[in-house]
């Protein structure tokens, strides 16, 4: 799978990791690329560890298996670091993006000796300050876009604004909060990079 970026999402049921993967596929689609976004379904229940995947490519995507050697990993819930081998197969020249208030130095010892880039984003704090609730997937989506460079910041923000207007047509009051969450996450990652 040359020319293909592979991303694996780790989250817990109910946190929106699947939605984030589907939104990322949307974002990449609008850049004219081939995309794939899919969750791995197990026993569906709130709080259970779940995995979702993205492939983004210049070429048609034919493979339908899960992703075992990702270029990037996004961890939506840092408590998973103790129970799931989130860096399994993660490429050294890739990166892992983790939702946590801790610094990358504090997190690295939990990553089974992973030597690549570790980027931390306090998606929970961003979400709580902008939306008043813990919806970490919106800031995590922005963080993944910022780290992977799938889309430049400005077109990404414009694009998401249109998506949110459509998605939240009946709840316009949450659009501003979501947009702010995206901006703050982007700022945080740009600082870390």
């Amino acid at each position, binding site marked *: *799978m040359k020319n293909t970026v592979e991303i694996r999402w780790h989250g817990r049921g109910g946190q929106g990791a699947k939605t984030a993967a*589907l939104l990322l596929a949307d974002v990449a689609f609008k850049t004219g690329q081939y*995309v794939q976004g899919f*969750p791995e379904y197990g026993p569906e229940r709130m709080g259970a560890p779940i995995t979702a995947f993205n492939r983004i490519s210049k070429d*048609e*995507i034919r*493979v*339908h298996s*899960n992703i075992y050697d990702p270029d990037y990993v996004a961890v939506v819930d840092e408590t998973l670091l103790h129970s799931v081998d989130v860096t399994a197969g993660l490429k050294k020249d890739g990166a892992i993006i983790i939702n946590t208030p801790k610094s990358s130095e504090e997190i690295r010892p939990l990553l089974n000796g992973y030597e690549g880039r570790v980027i931390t984003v306090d998606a929970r704090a961003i979400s709580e300050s902008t939306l008043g609730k813990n919806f970490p997937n919106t800031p995590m989506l922005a963080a993944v876009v910022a780290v992977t460079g799938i889309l430049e910041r400005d077109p990404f923000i414009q694009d998401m604004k249109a998506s949110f207007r459509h998605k939240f047509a009946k709840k316009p009051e949450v659009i501003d909060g979501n947009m702010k969450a995206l901006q703050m996450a982007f700022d945080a990652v740009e600082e870390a990079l």
Partner: protein
Amino acid sequence: MSAKSIKERMSGNEAVAYAIRQVEPDVIPAFPITPSTEIPQMVSTFIANGQMNTDFIPVESEHSAMSAAIGAEAAGARTMTATSSVGLALMWEELLLAASNRLPIVLTLVNRTLSGPININCAHSDGMGARDTGWIQIYSENNQEAYDNYIQAFPIAEDPSVHLPVMICQDGFITSHAVQNIELLDDASVKEFVGSYDPEEYLLNPGNPVSVGPYSVSNYAMEAKKAQADAMVRAKDAILKTGERFGKLSGRSYGLFEEYRTADADYIMVIMGSAAGTAREAVDELREEGVKAGVLKLRVFRPFPEDEIAKALSACRAVAIMDRCESYNGHGGPLAQEIPAALFRNRVSVETVSYVYGLAGRDFRVEEVRSVFQDLQDLSENGKTIEQFQYIGLRKKQE
């Protein structure tokens, strides 16, 4: 190409729901079951929003869904439904009635394993369990094929020389819930392609009263079965004609199966559904390494294109037959029975190895395709003994 192509991204379920809106059948009776639930759910939203004019009947079980579909279709209405797994199993009795009464119902099946252990993920055991019910069965690799096959289902089913129900299958979750790129057709082109449904005979036709599904005595029942079997044979031509016509409309034509790099192949894998894409990826890798590998992706399982498959496999050295389904006969799944029989009847002598893979959503990877081709090479070139029937992707004992 005559239709407008709309570049989109959507899941397999969304793609089928989109196609249903465009075809706009008269009646949809449905009962929800994972992973096909989204299809009637999205369609009922389209109906509620006034985007399509279809009678949606929420029924209390899949048995009732197929019963209502039979009633509606017999009355002269273009009818479809959707289901998965044990939902299809509960329709079993009615599936046979739909086919034997020659009712061109379309069923979109999102393949999910039959219980047990109870599991929501993909296997082909549901569709394969219904393989002798008299339904035409077409399998799809991805969202695009699920969409394209669904649109073609109506002209195939309603062809006056066929008059049989059609099952359009796609892999549960693997494609039904995966968002990928797709090229949609414009509404008007789809409507024109499927045309209007004008059955020759139907119940709500006072000028020409008919009975549907009466008791048939032994003096006549066997002729009815033979007529049904003959219609299935004729379906092949209707499928090919429709696939070609769809190609003119969309730029994507369809046959009974698709051959990938098989022309000069020493080794060919026969496979259906989403795993065929993974197999093609592995074949490209192997070709770069000098291994002459190829893939035969079976699209039409009923009617079974036995002579065509035998011909396509006649020049290779060894064939891997891949079943996402167990038959509990001790030597392979449904394809592992049909294909060697096809080879035998066509006097084609070629080594075959049968595999069961991907049961209950077990992931099927490029590495596993490669290991299957390695088996074929070992068998054919290295003089090794290879087990004739194997499971692939099983956990090792310590796992």
